[in-house]
Each structure stands twice: as C-alpha cells, then as structure tokens.
C-alpha cells in the first residue's frame, strides 16, 4: 500500500519492489544450521562473548562482567602495551585515512579522554567525548559499547564551551566509535582512525586501560 497522495508512477514502482523475495530453502537450512552451532545467547545478564569481534562485544545496559584469560606471554605483552601507551591514560590511536575536508566543512573538532581514574562498581572508567560542531542540531555517539545505536548515547551542548559532550562509562579495552552528526556518521576528526570500520565509514578508536593498573 502506498501513501494516499503518492503519484501513480510511485505506486507502480513500490508495488513491484514490494514483491516478496522468496527465501531459498537451502539458504534457510544453512542459516538455521549456523544458528544451531552458534553459542546460545543464554540470558540478558550473561552475554556470550565467544564470538567476540569488536562490534559484538557491545555492552548491554544491564552490564556484564568480562572475564578474559591471558596466557603468561600474552599477559606480559598486554601489560607492556598498556605501560607503553601510558598508564591510566585513555587515548586514541590507529590512523588510517584523514577526513580533513569533512572537518573543515563541519568545523568540527573532538576529543575523547578519561576524566576519572576511579574504579566504578562495574570496573569501568568514565570517558568524556567532546565534539565541536557548532552547526549541528543533533549529535550521537555510536560505538562498540552501545551496539552502534544512534539513539542510545546523545551528546548535549555544553553551554560554557559550546561543544557537544557526553561522558560514558567504559570497561577496559579497545573501543571503536564514531559520532553521528545530524545523521551523518563521522569519525572523531581530531583522533586517529580505526583501520577498518566494518560499517562503511571510518571510525576512531579509544583504549581504556584497567583502573587497577
């Protein structure tokens, strides 16, 4: 059914485009087979992490404890990495391609930094994200920590600085993120970028170190 006032050509097009695309039985069987082999999403409080790519490790608001077992060499390497990167400092890394033109066009600048080293009950750190986008009317933060949901973490304009800001509690680890500025996904313009965003545009990365280090 088309809009009541839509033109006839549009009705014809949409009627055609809405024709159902059949689901091939072989495809369905393969999908269900893959689902059957996949670890069960057991409960809301116990999210299976074995799939574990960046996107899938998004945090549910109900929180979960992350248990990571490291071998001795891996543990040493991880410790060395955090020491090298600066104990207790949240930072961004991994530059791939700059979007200078985008920054110039929007006049945006941004910064994500840890503002608290106090361990939270959920062992998370507060990370403050800032974006200078004076012409924007709506800015959201999306990332691996909120399932890339643009409706979850909205930035508000700081009356003092004029910047868009939001503080988010994040667990230790690597988090890929981006801003959604009036609907357009934009990497943090002042931050280095992730090598591959997996969502069709370049993102940024923030590392959060363990509050216990």
């Amino acid at each position, binding site marked *: 059914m088309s809009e009541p006032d839509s033109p006839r050509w549009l009705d014809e097009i*949409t009627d055609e485009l809405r024709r*159902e695309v059949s*689901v*091939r039985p072989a495809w369905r069987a393969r999908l269900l087979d893959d*689902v059957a082999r996949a670890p069960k999403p057991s409960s809301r409080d116990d999210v299976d992490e074995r799939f574990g790519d960046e996107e899938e490790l998004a945090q549910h*608001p109900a929180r979960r404890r992350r248990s990571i077992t490291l071998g001795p060499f891996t543990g040493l390497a991880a410790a060395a990495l955090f020491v090298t990167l600066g104990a207790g400092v949240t930072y961004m890394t991994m530059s791939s391609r700059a979007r200078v033109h985008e920054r110039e066009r929007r006049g945006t600048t941004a910064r994500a930094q840890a503002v608290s080293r106090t361990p939270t009950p959920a062992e998370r750190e507060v990370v403050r994200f800032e974006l200078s986008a004076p012409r924007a009317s709506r800015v959201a933060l999306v990332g691996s920590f909120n399932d890339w949901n643009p409706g979850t973490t909205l930035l508000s304009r700081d009356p003092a600085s004029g910047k868009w800001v939001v503080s988010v509690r994040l667990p230790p680890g690597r988090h890929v993120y981006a801003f959604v500025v009036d*609907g357009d996904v934009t990497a943090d313009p002042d931050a280095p970028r992730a090598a591959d965003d997996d969502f069709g545009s370049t993102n940024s990365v923030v590392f959060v170190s363990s509050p216990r280090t």
Partner: protein
Amino acid sequence: MTHPHVPGFNLATMTDALLVRRVLDGDTAAFTTIVDRHAAACTRFATRMLGNREDAEDVTQETFLRAYRSLARYEERQAFRTWLFQILINRCRTAAARRERRHRMFLVDDNAIASASVRPAAESSDLRAELQRVIDALDPDHREAFLLKHVEQLSYDEMAAATGVGVSALKMRVKRACDRMQWLLREASDVGT
C-alpha cells in the same frame, strides 16, 4: 509452528519480544520462528540495496547470526523489526563499501558507470530489472531511505532509529530519491523509444 515440547503452544502467534525471551531462555526453535517471520523482508531489502541476490543472502545470513548472538542486548521498548533492520542496514553498508572499494580498483569513470546503470536493457523489458537498475543508480543513502520508507514501509521514526539519521534528513533523502527515480525512469523511457 506448534512448540514441540508444549502441546498447543503456538510460536507463530507470539510477538517478537516474547520469541526473543524464549530464545534467551534456551528455546532455539523460537529463533526459527523469528527467521521465518523476517527473512523475506530482510532478503528483499538487501537485494534491493545491493542489487544481487548472492550478496543479499550473505548479508541477511550475517544479520540473523549477529542478531542471534546479540539477542541479550535487544530491548523490548524498540520494535524487534527495527532493531533487526538496524543490523541489516549496517551489514548492507559494510558490504556496499567493501564492494565499492573493490570496484574502484577497476572502474574510475563515474559518468560511464552512471549512464550504464540506467540504460534499459535492449533484450529485456522486465520491469523489475529495469527498476533495479534505477534503484542502483541512486545515491546509496537515498536508496536506503527510499527502500525503508516505500518498500519496507517503516515509519520515519523507525527509520531514524534504524539508520541513525534524523527524520528531516530522511524525508529529504526520500524526496530526492523519488525525484531522481522519476527523472531516471523518464530518461530511460525516452532512450527506449
């Protein structure tokens, strides 16, 4: 579908939110119902977005697997279909971006690509193929908005939740898609006569 362990228990009549709860409680069969309920629409959207069935099936399969793994993060205040489309849209964007990067290695003449994509096939008068060529010629953002609105019939609020784009921007994209499609169809018609 009648539940195998509970006589008279009909999964097919359950809401998506209830099915999700059952899956989280360990009832994998409930996810089969979710797949059967949404697979056709997802495959349709992906096919229209990506322009070919094989890529669409890959993307749709990936979408359902990701949805399954992420079910614990689904919140019932959001319609499940919107949540599922959010994943699907992202997978389509990723697939399109990867394909675009591959194509850039071989094709650099944008004008040639654009004109080729709307030219009617001499040997085919199939309306659907013609429409797919027109859809393919749209800007991906406009194509996405048009399909969500006019084909999948999401509300603008649902579209905003699924895409992360503001309602006013989405309305503009849909309008531009319609304008462009009308122009392309008219041009194709002129070329064909």
